[in-house]
């Protein structure tokens, strides 16, 4: 029996492919076939396949954005054959909640992340600054400008600017959450015309222009990671998974000078509610659901964590899915960022991302099918504002316009 697995091509997934010999050794009757693709292409492909029941894949790697949407459509099989030794309760509650619909688990998390601040302890010290326990955006803005002034060839702050619902919009949505803003009110009316958006977005654009890197409007996660690793950034707010890269001395020139802190807020206690996980799920169209579940159980179980730790070291195990990992001393030893990560993940409540009530779930995204398209369009407008090709007000007004249009068409706004 051959199962076809669609995966994204990030480091953890590639590692899993390498270690899959262990699985085939244990299950000689199951053969694995990989389709490895870049994130956007992958999403496009699996979505087309599942929506048109193409049946090309038995296991799909999908985000926690898709899981609830697809599960509601009945496109995913409930994962109920993961085996007895699969400790479901060990999964982080925030993550597990995001993958369940009506209490049924539709996808198993492979790894998870939230967002936090990574900053350069040496530069902070040099400028006489200290990172508070719970920094506010106001502090961040001042610190970034000060460090920039003190160190001309270092950028005070690096943030995502590249257009895309999973790129700049992830960050900006989290930012706005922490400013108390929201995408939609309870009647699905877009909120870009509200002061929170104006304030948050204006802050972001000004900060990036004054203390950010050049070409910020094309910087995504990768570009910022590289900048940070090369010592060009004093601060970076992004996915927690980045911590393992910036603290890895092999790739990072600043590995021993990185500090971590919780995602900033505006004093309201809302830290953005960023929560993302890559998960394995079985499409309803798969004819080999049992084998597929067997594989998922192998790949997301505690035993896999140990396998990775044994073969490649604790620092390389996929983070952010299981409580037990954060209780493991060896892991905490190898990963100095374990604690802040866990804190961030536990703080992320994707059912109440904003201070105000919202009709949707999702932290740095809105878990409705229309969000991919809408988010990308809005992302384009915002990156144009960042690039200086459009004013902040124009960008927000157009975003409001586009969103109203899209929501009306999809029937949310009656």
């Amino acid at each position: 029996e051959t199962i076809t697995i669609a995966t994204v091509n990030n480091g953890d997934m590639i590692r899993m492919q390498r270690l899959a010999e262990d699985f085939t050794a244990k299950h000689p009757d199951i053969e694995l076939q990989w389709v490895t693709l870049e994130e956007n292409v992958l999403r496009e492909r699996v979505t087309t396949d599942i929506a048109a029941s193409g049946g090309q894949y038995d296991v799909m790697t999908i985000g926690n954005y898709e899981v609830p949407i697809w599960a509601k459509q009945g496109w995913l099989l409930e994962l109920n054959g993961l085996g007895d030794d699969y400790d479901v309760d060990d999964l982080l509650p925030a993550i597990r909640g995001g993958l369940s619909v009506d209490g049924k688990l539709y996808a198993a998390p492979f790894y998870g992340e939230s967002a936090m601040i990574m900053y350069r302890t040496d530069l902070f010290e040099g400028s006489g600054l200290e990172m508070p326990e719970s920094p506010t955006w106001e502090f961040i803005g001042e610190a970034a400008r000060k460090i920039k002034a003190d160190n001309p060839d270092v950028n005070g702050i690096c943030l995502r600017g590249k257009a895309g619902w999973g790129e700049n919009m992830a960050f900006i949505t989290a930012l706005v959450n922490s400013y108390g803003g929201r995408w939609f009110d309870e009647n699905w009316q877009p909120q870009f015309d509200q002061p929170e958006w104006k304030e948050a977005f204006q802050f972001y654009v000004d900060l990036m222009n004054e203390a950010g890197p050049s070409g910020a409007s094309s910087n995504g996660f990768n570009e910022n990671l590289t900048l940070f690793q090369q010592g060009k950034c004093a601060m970076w707010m992004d996915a927690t998974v980045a911590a393992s890269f910036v603290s890895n001395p092999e790739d990072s020139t600043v590995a021993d000078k990185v500090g971590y802190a919780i995602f900033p807020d505006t004093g309201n206690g809302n830290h953005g509610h960023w929560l993302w996980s890559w998960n394995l799920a079985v499409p309803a169209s798969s004819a080999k659901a049992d084998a597929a579940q067997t594989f998922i159980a192998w790949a997301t179980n505690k035993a896999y964590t140990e396998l990775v730790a044994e073969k490649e070291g604790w620092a390389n195990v996929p983070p952010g899915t299981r409580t037990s990992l954060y209780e493991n001393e060896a892991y905490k030893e190898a990963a100095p960022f374990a604690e802040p990560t866990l804190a961030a993940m536990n703080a992320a409540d994707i059912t109440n991302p904003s201070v105000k009530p919202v009709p949707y779930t999702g932290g740095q995204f809105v878990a409705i099918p229309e969000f991919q398209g809408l988010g990308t369009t809005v992302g384009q407008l915002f990156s144009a504002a960042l690039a200086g090709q459009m004013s902040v007000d124009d960008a927000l007004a157009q975003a409001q316009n586009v969103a109203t249009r899209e929501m009306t068409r999809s029937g949310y706004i009656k």
Partner: protein
Amino acid sequence: MATRQTRTLARLMMAPAVVLLLIWMIVPLSMTIWYSFQNYNMLNPAMRGFAGFFNYVYFYTDPAFYQAIINTLFIVVGVLFITIVGGIALALLLDQPIFGQGIVRILVISPFFVMPPVAALIWKNMIMHPGYGVLADVSRFLGLQPVDWFAQYPLTSVIIIVAWQWLPFATLILLTALQSLDEEQKEAAEMDGANFANRFWYLTLPHLARAITVVILIQTIFLLAVYAEILVTTNGGPGYATTNLAFLIYRTALLSYDVGGASAGGVIAVVLANIVAIFLMRAVGRNLDR
């Protein structure tokens, strides 16, 4: 040549190609037209139904629509301009006796063999990147502020990349056409007292008319559909600065999974492409018959 027998046979021989292409055109086209009148979002299969002209209106009223059309035309015209002017210049240069002609030619045609996504990646990451790109390094070396290409000149950047890919094609066609220019005609012009510029203007350029037409026709067909380069480099942004029609459809089809809307967009694009084609045939098609 043309007896009744051979004429009948000729129709038969043409049939497979015509029929296949007819199917290839009609089936997707009619499906597209059908879907374009449907409410059909892949992610929301519950909401199926007849939509009337709504998809068209929706696509047409998209805030990016006009800009997309303008961008599409800019890309086509911009790339055509660069490749034809550059192609003529290059062809004239390569037509001279030079050392290492074979190698020069190989170097010049190489971009044609590069897959579009790869080309876009090279340009984006290694050449035009404001931080690590070669151009940035060069301008820093010259003491200038590096240009953030994709933010400051997004459409120009896309045009440059696409033009780089198509320049070899234009150069090659024009070069071969140039080499077919009758030697005696050039000599006659020389005897008539024409200098290099005169010979180029009165002799070479008219001779190249047909080749230029072929370049325009073929390239236009491909350029109307440029999208991989945009997807990889700018994602249509910033704003709608690099959103062309193909990308707009892509956004509708593969980000919103709005099959109805994308189909309407497809139909609109086909209509526009045909308008462009008819315009082109009017403008330059005459040259083909020579």
